[in-house]
């Protein structure tokens, strides 16, 4: 049995947390020691019958009361302020952070890198690169926790949570579930492998260790396939129709709802719009929708995520569309619609919005692989979901 005292530090955040811990521990020891010393000293010195000066006992003293109220208050608020900044940083990851999608389910973690590599109960990341985890649960609440990174975030059913990190030290670290989730809660977890950038590149080339087949479909490719097989493209074309809005360029754009409320078309919004279209009606498309609600038994969280990644690839507000593949093999479903020359929605100012460009830009998205079976896009990837 070894005798560990502090957990390993393997992320930028872990240094900040441990520094805070040092301050808090100092304060705790100082104050506890002060109180203990006072109690012991008084108990001995003023023990019953001891011959010491007890003249002029005091029963109240405003100055002392204020002293021991205000000093702890100030110290507390200083610690509070110090703890706020790192918190906002990890829950607000930088824009350039690479995304990893995390699904918790009884009793495993399923992780999906943006390049399509999937892992179960394992996570491989390089040092020196910011990552953003987008987390959701497929059943009950779970807690995604990497002690060596000091990061934790609950995986909630039906809503996305995020946490960011940047690993600093190569090694193998625990991955736990921290929100009680049933019988095998304590076995839900695995390992995080932090690698040097060179090792990581090597690992990527192999398509991830332990993956049974090297053909890796990206989330975007799978999303595109789903988009076709579910016939989303029948209504959501490259331009708005009477029935449905186009999804081109809507990602992270403000949308006006039937209620008049303006909401941002972020991951959360798209997730809800797929799961419960009837609760997310846009202004200008009537009071009802013909779109079916895609519930848990029709689409897994992973599939919803893939759809969102695909929608995101159709252009985002901030600018250039995310293009990862360059060799078009087949026309993309959206691009095949008669789109050429049609002006996009008026508020769309992304490059993709330029007349004539959408088809070209979207065509860039069409996948390179030809082996995927459209009917079961998530079943042939080595994932044990």
């Amino acid at each position, binding site marked *: 049995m070894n005798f560990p005292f502090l957990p390993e530090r393997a992320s930028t955040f872990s240094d900040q947390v441990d520094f805070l811990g040092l301050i808090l521990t100092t304060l705790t020891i100082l104050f*506890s020691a002060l109180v203990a010393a006072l109690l012991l000293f008084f108990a001995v010195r003023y023990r019953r019958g001891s011959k010491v000066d007890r003249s002029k006992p005091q029963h109240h003293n405003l100055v002392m009361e204020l002293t021991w*109220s205000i000093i702890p208050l100030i110290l507390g608020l200083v610690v509070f302020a110090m703890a706020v900044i790192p918190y906002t940083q990890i829950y607000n990851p930088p824009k350039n952070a690479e995304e990893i999608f995390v699904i918790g389910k009884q009793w495993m973690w399923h992780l999906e890198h943006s390049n399509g590599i999937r892992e179960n109960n394992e996570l491989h990341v390089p040092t020196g690169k910011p990552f953003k985890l987008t987390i959701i649960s497929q059943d009950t609440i779970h807690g995604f926790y990497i002690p*060596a990174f000091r990061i934790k975030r609950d995986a*909630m059913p*039906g809503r996305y949570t995020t946490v960011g990190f940047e690993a600093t030290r190569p090694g193998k670290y625990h991955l736990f579930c921290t929100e009680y989730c*049933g019988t095998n*809660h304590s076995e839900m977890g695995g390992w995080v492998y932090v690698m040097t950038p060179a090792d990581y590149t090597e690992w990527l080339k192999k398509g991830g260790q332990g993956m049974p087949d090297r053909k890796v479909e990206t989330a975007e490719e799978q999303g595109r396939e789903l988009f076709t097989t579910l016939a989303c493209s029948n209504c959501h074309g490259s331009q708005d129709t009477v029935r449905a809005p186009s999804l081109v360029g809507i990602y992270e754009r403000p949308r006006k709802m039937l209620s008049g409320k303006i909401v941002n078309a972020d991951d959360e919004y798209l997730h809800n719009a797929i799961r419960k279209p009837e609760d997310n009606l846009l202004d200008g498309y009537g009071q009802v929708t013909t779109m079916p609600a895609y519930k848990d038994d029709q689409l897994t969280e992973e599939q919803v995520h893939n759809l969102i990644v695909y929608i995101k690839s159709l252009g985002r507000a901030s600018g250039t569309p995310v293009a990862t593949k360059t060799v078009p093999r087949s026309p993309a479903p959206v691009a095949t619609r008669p789109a050429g020359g049609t002006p996009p929605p008026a508020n769309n100012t992304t490059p993709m919005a330029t007349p004539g460009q959408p088809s070209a830009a979207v065509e860039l998205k069409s996948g390179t692989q030809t082996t995927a079976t459209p009917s079961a896009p998530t079943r042939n990837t080595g994932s044990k979901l």
Partner: protein
Amino acid sequence: MSATALPPGGIPARAGEQEPSYLTWSYTVKDWLLTIDHKRIAVLYLISISVMFLLGGFAAMMIRIELTSPHGQLLTSEVYNKMFTMHGVLMVFFFLVPSIPATLGNFCIPLMIGAKDLAFPRLNLLSWYLYTIGGLMALSAMIMGGVDTGWTFYTPYSSVYSNGNVSLTLIGIFIAGFSSIATGINFIVTIHKMRAPGMTWFRLPLFIWAHYTTSVIIVLGTPVVAITLALVVVERLLHLGIFNPALGGDPILFQHMFWFYSHPAVYIMILPSMGIISEIIACFSRKRIFGYSFVAFSSIAIGVFGFLVWGHHMFVTGQSMYTGMVFSALSFIVAVPSAIKVFNWAATMYKGQVWLTAPMLYALGFIGLFTVGGLTGLYLASLAMDVHLNMTYFVVAHFHFVMVGGATLGYLGGLHFWWPKITGRMYPEGWAKLAAGISFIGFNLTFLPQFVVGYLGMPRRYHYYPAEYQIWHVLSSAGASVLAIGYGIPLIYFLWSLKYGEKAGPNPWGAIGLEWQTASPPPMENFHEIPVVTWEAYAYDDETEHGAQEDRKDMPGTEAAVRQEAARDTEEGHPQGHPAAE
């Protein structure tokens, strides 16, 4: 309404020494089970709460035995999960919440304010029945297969995924909640309306202030958790979408509603304990409490701010970042009133006549452990730190320092302090000091290692855990067995003292306070004549200046009796102004 609790047709005689006490005026089971005397109801509560404590302690021992090995040996994961749920449910809802108010509060509040009973004696009896029914339901749910949700009953696990007897347990807690509410209402009305003549608000013992605040929290908070738990039952049985996102509900809503009660519930558990500590420290320092009004108002401040910090349980859920900041700041502020109390207690001992009795040892232990418990709470109030520590053993260690090192040690201190009053017998002082020492050592050995293993990353509610954490768990389990001995000894000598203990007399500690002016055990009606109060709370200082009391055998009632006599003389004209006298 009449405040007296005389049994039908059973008015006790007023014949001095031979007069029967509340324990001896009748021995029939009926007179115990249908009593409306607050003292008897307190004893009923004491017995039922002790049973719950032993059952909860049994579950804790199973957990600690199991965790000595990283792979478990004794239990399956399913049974392990049921054990920690049983431990949490019994200890929180059926031991900690009612422990001090329903036993010591019930017994002492009327005595301390000079009343003959609580304002609503029948409601008081009803509360014990509600507690018993709720407790039996929760216990039968555990016997018939158990519950595996954890005491927090987070949805959607509890409302959708758990196969245990969740509904029955929740209904049991729901019913027991009404027993808390009944007790709370009773205390509020009693403290407002039934104080003896001259017992102004600022002459009240701080035990009363603490219970007053506690009662307000109970009355405001308990209905919320009752509704919340009832909604879980509704979702479970009727599949109405309230917390389950698949049905359009929101699981975070449950957490908000649950912690809106359950965080203030921490103060329901700790405030009465703080009240006890104020009594004990003043009595055994033979000194007025330092900064009476600061201690009294810090209870109120804790009560108010305690309702505004529930969100600090949810920093790592989907709660907004800015919400988190507000709750974090408020959590730091709520620490201040606790600090005020601790320093005032220490200052009370300054220039006192410190008498290290068993209750005093418990009180000193409380102050030390509560300080550590409170300070480690600041780690969890710090946003970035909480991201790391939330849901780990650090949290477990922190709240056990507050709940066991604080609330339970205070409860034991209070029990040792008022045991002579409740039973009329002394327990063996040497054994009691030994038990206090063993508990203190056992407690620290149990829970200090949990801070370390928590910081290392060990999540709570884990049956299996990585082998590198084992050493800390072994230390913790070793401490738990020491702690069990520390709790076992009082159980034995308390029972022993009932028959063999030395007779205590009215005031074995030479304490000031109305409860010490009547016989031990008190007569059915508490006071033959309603006392009239002309002195401040904790008026010990005359003694302090004249030197220590030599032997407690000289003490009984002398000081107090003189005072009472004097009071009666001066206020002869208007004793009937007191509501309880009518």
